[in-house]
């Protein structure tokens, strides 16, 4: 009897970080309710909790738990690290953000932590059901976060849109899963691949349809065109810190699922999904970059840029190779740092009653606040993909992987569209450095935002100058090894 008890406790090994985070989330709500005067500690507690979870994730060994439902491998760990870094940076930003927006509720932070639990589950999902659970946990928390500023019509609209569209996507996903389950008799991702071969399903149109439906839902989650229409509105309407969070965490989790399902579950169909995703990637890059050109609000511009970057990241997945996946992983990490950095500047610039989301507000920033302008300059060049920043390293790896897999035209497409993207990223630099200031903005570098900017800068320049270790990590974290 004692032995079984031991065994059953051990079975929870693979989800220790998740359980820990759930406790943190509950604790944050509790603190909010029972010690409302201590609310200024909320962001810091979130940061500490996520850091602890990060250490746990990093220390995890390769284990498979719950009968193959949860897979803890270095692939999952890499994505979990990206998501947790996303949460940490968002919490740090929120420390500043709550002063301007008055978002002081405890549930803000606990919802963030709960969505992180969802992402972590998605990253290590070995079964379509766990995947779905994780996805819903993540999505539901984020719907609430988007609508958090209750008195703001834009936020409410964004939350509503996101909820409806997200619900629709989830339904499509479930439909796809049920078809796949019906044909293969399993929801275990690696078993699906086996049954496809043994059940002679390689040319089964229904299975392809099921896969197609699942892909559509994943594309929705990571904002791949033509399933990206929610992105600009939701990103624009959400509180800025949450927008930053959405552009990194859920996206990384979405790509983790993307890679795992396609490469473990449907590797035999690479001929079909490879070419399909290649055309979607091209479409996404085109729509994201070209539409971003005409934006006048920096938040919307970054939203379209997020769409474009999803297109870039897809290049690694569609290669269908281990190298491609590690390229996507590296890219998402670098994108996390640079995009979070850019959004942190947005948060920093906002003041109560004036969000300063228009590009015009950046005119002459170099004169009034050289430090903020210089940081923004680095993030913009990184998003463009100019060395010695992380953006270049990530893009280079993607290009290399996709080229190695034979997608030459997609590679050339990326190159052309990222030259186009230079135009709108540089417009920010141009406004900051080459125009005269319109108002004298005084910025308040609070500890939280300074820390967030510092970490982002360190990530962007660190990976840019010494990419060796990160690439090494990503390259060894290959699926199934």
């Amino acid at each position: 009897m004692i032995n079984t008890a031991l065994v059953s406790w051990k079975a929870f090994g693979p989800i220790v970080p998740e359980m820990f985070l759930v406790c943190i989330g509950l604790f944050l709500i509790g603190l909010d309710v029972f010690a409302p005067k201590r609310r200024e500690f909320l962001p810091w507690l979130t940061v500490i909790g996520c850091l602890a979870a990060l250490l746990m994730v990093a220390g995890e060994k390769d284990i498979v738990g719950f009968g193959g439902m949860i897979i803890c491998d270095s692939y999952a760990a890499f994505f979990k690290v990206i998501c947790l870094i996303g949460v940490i940076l968002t919490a740090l930003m929120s420390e500043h953000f709550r002063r301007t927006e008055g978002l002081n509720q405890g549930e803000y932070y606990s919802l963030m932590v709960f969505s992180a639990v969802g992402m972590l589950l998605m990253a290590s999902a070995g079964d379509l059901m766990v995947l779905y659970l994780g996805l819903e946990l993540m999505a539901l928390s984020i719907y609430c976060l988007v609508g958090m500023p209750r008195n703001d019509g834009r936020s409410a609209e964004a939350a509503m849109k996101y909820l409806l569209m997200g619900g629709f996507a989830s339904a499509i996903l479930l439909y796809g899963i049920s078809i796949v389950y019906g044909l293969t008799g399993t929801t275990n991702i690696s078993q699906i691949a086996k049954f496809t071969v043994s059940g002679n399903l390689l040319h089964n149109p229904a299975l392809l349809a099921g896969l197609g439906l699942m892909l559509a839902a994943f594309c929705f989650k990571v904002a791949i065109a033509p399933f990206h229409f929610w992105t600009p509105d939701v990103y624009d309407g959400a509180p800025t810190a949450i927008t930053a969070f959405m552009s990194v965490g859920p996206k990384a989790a979405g790509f983790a699922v993307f890679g795992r399902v396609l490469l473990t579950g449907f590797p035999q169909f690479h001929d079909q999904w490879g070419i399909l995703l290649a055309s979607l990637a091209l479409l996404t890059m085109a729509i994201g970059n070209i539409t971003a050109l005409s934006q006048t609000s920096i938040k919307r511009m970054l939203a379209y840029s997020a769409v474009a970057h999803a297109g870039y990241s897809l290049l690694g997945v569609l290669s269908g190779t281990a190298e491609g996946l590690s390229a996507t992983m590296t890219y998402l990490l670098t994108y996390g740092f640079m995009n979070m950095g850019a959004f942190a500047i947005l948060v920093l610039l906002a003041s109560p009653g004036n969000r300063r989301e228009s590009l015009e507000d950046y005119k002459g920033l170099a004169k009034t606040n050289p430090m903020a302008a210089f940081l923004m300059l680095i993030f913009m060049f990184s998003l463009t993909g100019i060395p010695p920043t992380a953006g270049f390293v990530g893009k280079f790896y993607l290009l290399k992987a996709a080229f190695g897999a034979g997608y030459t035209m997609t590679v050339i497409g990326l190159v052309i569209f990222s030259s186009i993207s230079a135009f709108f990223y540089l417009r920010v630099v141009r406004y900051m450095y080459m125009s005269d200031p319109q108002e004298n903005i005084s910025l308040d570098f609070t500890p939280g935002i300074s820390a967030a900017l510092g970490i982002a800068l360190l990530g962007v320049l660190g990976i840019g100058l010494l990419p060796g270790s990160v690439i090494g990590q990503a390259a060894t974290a290959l699926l199934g090894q």
Partner: protein
Amino acid sequence: MSAPLLSALIFFPIIGGFSLLIVKREDVQAIKIMALIISLIEFVLSIPLFFMFDKTTYLMQFTEHHSWIPAFNINYSLGVDGISVLFVLLSTLVTILAILVSWEAIEKKVLEFFLSILVLEGVMIGVFCATDIFLFYIFWEVMLIPMFLIIGIWGGPNRIYATIKFFLYTLIGSLLMLVGIIALYMKGGHTFDVIELARHSYPIKFQIWLFLAFFAAFAVKVPMWPVHTWLPDAHTEAPAAGSVILAAVLIKMGAYGFLRFSMPILPQATQAMMVPMIVLSLIGIVYGAVICLAQKDLKRLIAYSSVSHMGYITLGIFCLNSQSVEGGILQMINHGVVTGALFLCIGMVYERTHTRVIKDYGGLASTMPVFGSFFLLFTLAAVGLPATNGFIGEFLILLGSFIYRPWAAFFAATGLVLGAWYMLWLYQRVFFNPINKKVVGLPELTTREIITLLPMVGLVFWIGLYPDAMLSFMHVSVTHLIDQVQGSAGAAKQVAAIVLH
């Protein structure tokens, strides 16, 4: 050589530039002096390259080698040979002059300006020293950032258009080259080392594609006709220092890229593309010169003359014999010196008049006689008068192209005639003619300005009278390069012959 001299040359100005940040922003004088001292120390640091360079070998010298991204076999490897060493020296010299000419001209964001110039210097040297093609690419792209800022922040009225055009042109070209570099890596045994890559032989069709990919980057930078249109805008709008660096060093990198990468790595494609490249060069020579005749703006005229002169350089390089290639490289230095000096001069006079329109000038020779003599000297060097450096370079290129095809030399020579026409006509309009009201009473050159111009005068005569001082650096390296291009093509023919039998 144990001391990492090249790394020092690359990183000293970059670190030096950022150390300006410790100076108080308002203390403009201290910033200027500090920047000048940094650039002078940098120049002194580069002098050993001139004296300790071994002219008897084509191998890379002063080499450094460290692993950088082991997963991709990317190394931080540096080295100079006879082709690149002179450009390092040119960069360190020109930066000093660029700082001197900006002394009074830059009034806003002084700290950022000198920071950009110093960072740019380090990065430029990196471009010439990198022997790992990935590292080269990094420096090549990083260069865009300071230059973008220099033109865009401190440039003329139309600066934003010019800097965006410059950035986008170069970026598209560079990114296509990046795809080429990745392709090369895949086929060339998963290495980025230039020398290793050159040892491989690639299928001819692959070589042609790759040549075109590299062409996209290098031709834009040179700039070759028809992708030259960014240059007049960038040159015209850039501040004097920006124009000088652009003319003297930046646009040389395109030609350098052909010499360092396209030719040794893709020898057969180089031979196959020889005629198209020569034709483009000739069009550039004549087109640039004819356009010069119609210019109303001083800086624009010199910019178009650069298009014409760069045509000579690419002509020399692609005639693929040792005279023409040596002439091409020497002409790169010459053009850097002469056009750099002309832009310095224009910067000095612009500071006084704030106009670049040729019509606003006239009779400057009587108001600023010393300036007039300097300008005359550089004008004559630009048209290639014997005893100036321009003559030697152009003569070697013409000689080399005549050996290759007399018709090429013929067309190139028409460019010389046109060159003499537009330059002397410019001189006449600006310095002779009746005195224009706008130039009455202009102050003569200050000592600082004369000091800025003197090194260039020295170089004009030094190279003009004793060209072997420079040519001796290149002989061995150029011969080796020609062997690589001609030899491997010959070897490939032999292999093909054996296979066919």
